[in-house]
Structures are given as C-alpha cells and as structure tokens.
C-alpha cells in the first residue's frame, strides 16, 4: 500500500522568503505523486505531478518539487513566497484500487 505523510500541519513564512512544505511517501514501488493547493472557499487545483519522467518537477506559480527515492520524499518548494500563496496544500498519492490518498494538509501563512 502507498500513503503520504505531510510533516507540518502549519507553516508560516515572510513574504519574499523561501517556502518548504514537506511530504514523505511510503511505497514499495516508484509512485506517482501530486501536490494540490486549496485556496479558501475554492476547489483543489493541481500544482504539479511526478510520474517518473523527471525527478525535479516544475509546477504552476513558481512551485517545484523534487522526488528523492533515497529519502522517500517529495517536498514542495518555492524560492520566494507571495501573499497569494497562502492556502492549504495537499500531497497526494494513488493507492490501491481506485483510491487516491491525501495527506492531512499543510496550511501556509504568508506574513507581509
């Protein structure tokens, strides 16, 4: 079975500083992994996805994530936070059958 663990429930950064949202996965095979963002009162939007093509994945809005098999990690980063980045972020992996497993989410606060 495959699952994901988001290591931080809340992250707070100052505007213009780097963002790091951590996700670890557990799997016995090379997984597919996704990051989604959920802004307040909005639906979830795909930020980026990893499907074994490249370990460094670039997404929308300047976000990127690196798949590290040795560390079983898929952390989400952005060099410089913007106020509009404040949202809930979910790390997601396909599971058994037709399910997708969502992490518990990381709430990002950006301080002006």
């Amino acid at each position, binding site marked *: 079975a495959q699952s994901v663990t988001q290591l931080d429930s809340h992250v707070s950064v100052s505007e213009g500083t780097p963002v790091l949202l951590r996700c670890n996965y557990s799997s016995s095979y090379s997984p*597919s992994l996704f990051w*989604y963002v959920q802004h307040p009162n909005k639906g*979830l939007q795909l930020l980026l996805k990893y499907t074994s093509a490249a370990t460094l994945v670039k997404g929308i809005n300047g976000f990127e994530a690196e798949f590290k098999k040795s560390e079983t990690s898929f952390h989400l980063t952005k060099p410089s936070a913007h106020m509009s980045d404040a949202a809930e972020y979910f790390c997601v992996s396909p599971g058994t*059958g*037709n399910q*997708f*497993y*969502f992490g518990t*989410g990381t709430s990002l606060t950006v301080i002006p």
Partner: protein
Amino acid sequence: GAGVSQSPSNKVTEKGKDVELRCDPISGHTALYWYRQRLGQGLEFLIYFQGNSAPDKSGLPSDRFSAERTGESVSTLTIQRTQQEDSAVYLCASSLSGTGYSYEQYFGPGTRLTVT
C-alpha cells in the same frame, strides 16, 4: 472550458433529513470521485465511478450514503437520515481516466453541508 460544478454550494439541513448533492463533471471525463473533507482535515475518499463499470463504493462510511451516476455525466450523492457528524465539505472530482495514475483530477468547489 467549463470546469467541474457542484450544487448547492451550501446546504443546511436538520438532523434526520435526507440531502442530495449534485456534481457535473467535465465533459468527456470518464472517471468521477466523491470525497468528504471535515473541518481541518484531509480528503476522505467516498466513491469512484469509471465509465459504465460498477462503482467502487469502498469509501462510503455507512449505508446512509449512496451515489449514482448517469452514464458519464451527472452524479448525485445522497445522504439519508443525516447526522451531525455528516457536516463537512463534499468535493467532487473528475478525470480523463481513473486507470492511469498520471491523470489529473479536476475538483469542483464543493458543497458545504451543515447538519443542525
């Protein structure tokens, strides 16, 4: 083009009443998912439809929950005899296919259900 739409956006109901939530997926998307998101928590898988195949109901929490989908179009999620613990945001997502893990899910804005 149009995204996934859900209705109503908000629903307040009394305990014990039945509610019906609607999802209109993106045209051409064969896979459709329903999730529940309780306050401050991640998404909980409820049910999955893929084309005309039998749905995967393994995530439904009780027999008070049911869902239907007409072909590859509209889906309705029905909760009978609602309980206060059913209060949550119910999210619908669709994708081109559920069998390829690289397929992105497109989410609707959700229905916020409050059971009083």
